[in-house]
């Protein structure tokens, strides 16, 4: 197992994703002799996990069952322990494409936060790219470094514990893309520019508030960035269900003999969830021209 390479069977030391149901997954560090409690009972790693195929059904002690899935950045995003607010897959997908990330890309990111986006970046830029990520909170920086090692992607990433607005990314002239998710991105735009390749590259800044976007856009203009574009992507999830619509009783009809008693028409449709995330953040993209 690795976050950048599939394998078929679960091995000691892997991180597996236990799928309980469609809104409940948990990450499990697979270790000989270890046990994991779920609401359906206990999972014994030595017998239930190690050597099993990813995707297998595991019957827990209480008779319920779960599936053990191969980790992916997307599953990790919904399973990871939050240390900060995180970016979700919808925004991550947009960021990845609009930053033109691909194998070999060199990327700068700040802040690392809980590492949700970092894992997606690493997946995309492997095996030849590199991620330089900056997190000013020491404990978070250490924790995420630990996770990268556990997930066997540490060779693709450098975590720096510094303030990106003051000290920049710790590299210069190497990045194809820069991503900013910090409270005052306009203070880091200059550093972003310095981190990027002389030949140019792409930048993205994620901000929840429009005032942040305005200041960032101004800073981008001042720093000579081009193609500045701000957008927002909203995910809508559709619940598939069969609904039944009753037909009213119009009383006896002279033209037909029978009067339907419990007439109803059922049909397959989707419903919107009662509540949905209405806003995550604005994504501002820009191109650094060749200098």
């Amino acid at each position, binding site marked *: 197992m690795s976050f950048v390479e599939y394998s078929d069977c679960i091995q000691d030391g892997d991180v597996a994703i236990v799928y309980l149901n*469609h809104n409940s997954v948990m990450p499990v560090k697979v270790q000989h002799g270890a046990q994991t409690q779920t609401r359906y009972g206990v999972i014994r790693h030595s017998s239930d996990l190690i050597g099993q195929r990813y995707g297998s059904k595991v019957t827990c002690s209480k008779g319920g069952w779960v599936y053990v899935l191969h980790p992916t950045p997307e599953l990790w995003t919904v399973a990871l322990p939050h240390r900060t607010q995180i970016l979700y*897959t919808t925004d991550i*997908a947009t960021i*990845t494409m609009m930053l033109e990330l*691909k194998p070999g890309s060199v990327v700068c990111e700040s802040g690392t936060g809980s590492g949700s986006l970092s894992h*997606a970046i690493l997946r995309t830029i492997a095996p030849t790219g590199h991620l330089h990520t900056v997190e000013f909170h020491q404990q978070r920086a250490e924790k995420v470094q630990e996770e990268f090692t556990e997930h066997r992607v540490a060779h693709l990433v450098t975590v720096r514990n510094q303030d990106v607005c003051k000290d920049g990314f710790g590299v210069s002239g190497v990045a194809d893309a820069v991503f900013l998710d910090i409270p005052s991105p306009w203070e880091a735009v200059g550093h972003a520019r310095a981190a990027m390749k002389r030949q140019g590259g792409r930048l993205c800044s994620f901000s929840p508030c429009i005032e942040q976007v305005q200041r960032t856009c101004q800073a981008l203009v001042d720093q000579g960035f081009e193609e500045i574009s*701000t957008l927002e992507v909203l*995910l809508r999830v559709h619940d598939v269900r069969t609904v039944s619509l009753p037909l009213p009783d119009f009383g006896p009809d002279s033209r037909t003999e029978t009067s339907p008693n419990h007439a109803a028409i059922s049909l397959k449709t989707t419903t919107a969830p009662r509540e949905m995330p209405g806003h995550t953040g604005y994504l501002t993209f820009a191109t650094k*021209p060749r200098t």
Partner: protein
Amino acid sequence: MADNGDDQYRINEGDYVVLKRGDIFKAVQILPKKKVIFEKQWFFLDNAVGNLYSTTFEISSGGILQPQKQKETGNPSDLKEAGTDNRHIVDDGKSQKLTRDDIETLKEQGLKGQEIIQQLIENSSTFRDKTEYAQDKYIKKKKKKYENTVTILKPSCRILAMMYHGREPGKICHLRYDTLAQMLTLANIHAGSKVLVFETCAGLVLGSVMERMGGHGSVIQMYPGGGPVRAGVESFGFPAHFHDTLHEFPICHVNALLAGALDAAAKDPTADEKQFGLAAEEEQIPPEAEQQGSPEEQSMETNTEDDAGQDQEKIEKEKRREAKAQEKKVKLEEKQKKLAAAAALLEGRNADGLVIASRFHPCPVLMTLLRFLSPSRPFVVYSQYKEPLIECYTKLREVGGTVNLRLTDTWLRHYQVLPNRTHPVLLMSGGGGYLLSGTTIAADRSKPAAPQQSEEPAPKRQKLKDTEG
């Protein structure tokens, strides 16, 4: 100019590039003396060769491109006079002193777009009274119309997806670029994996998958009909070694492959004939392409000796035909070899991902192609319409073998961010299609999948869950 490390950033002859003006894109190949029409202007790309990508060119008379020296920034007019509101601006249709003919004359004189705009401003009686913002807007609008520049970009998934969506959404089943972005992420496309792609999106989806794999791993394109459509893939301008990772397999042989009867099918004369016809179709010589596809044509070709030697013209025609037939035979053999290679990749039924985006009904495609996936692998199906995906969802819940099913779509909203003029862009795209995504799981060996099998381990609140079957 010629610094080290810039070579890969330079435009070469034969390169596939994207032309850009404003928000308009067009993909072309750089060929000598090739006339290109873009945004009502024509020009030759010869001069672009040797320049760096992302250079903006001015189009001078005769269609010759010249690298723009300095980006003209700011407003062409530096007069900072502006009104505060429009209470005195009357639309009498006479504010512009230049007539249409005057403007045409200016154009013919070879005036630069910038200069024409300056003239328009100077001859507009109301420009000075307009608010600063209205002036800005006026200039922007005129720039769009008169500026004769073009920027040459290196193609990427982002640019091509935006281009197709803007220019030819019908060709890509109205797949919007943010939806394509979701697909690539949901399917966990990355280097080193083995991915199945079934698409009728001109090759855009396939190319995007290939870009994300960076030439590592393998992509198997399952194609319907005559042959794989790859116009979009070409536009990416991938290096040659990327194409070594690309395989193709005709969807019409999938049943045979699943039944383990593919070899027989491939040797079957009717299958051969089909292949033969396909090879011919690929030649893409417009006047003959139609004939070649028909069975009559093929029978004619097998009897070429009969009518040979009638007259000179015909002989030559036949010769060409024969040469072509020979060529076709070679192509056919190549095709068979490729088919066998793709079949070998599929037979392990251990693919790492599945991406479907086509004009076909997705349900049978999904149900069949899922059988080639390893357990615990993601798949994603695109459809322009929601209803067929509802059917897919229902069917998958019925037969089992998948978890994490989600039917989604995304809304994309662009913003204009300008001092004191920040708001959502007035026009947004109405729909970018729908996605069904999920993860495969291992087949349950202990008991056959019951129709009512729930993916949840007997939750108490099952009644509240979506219904099945």
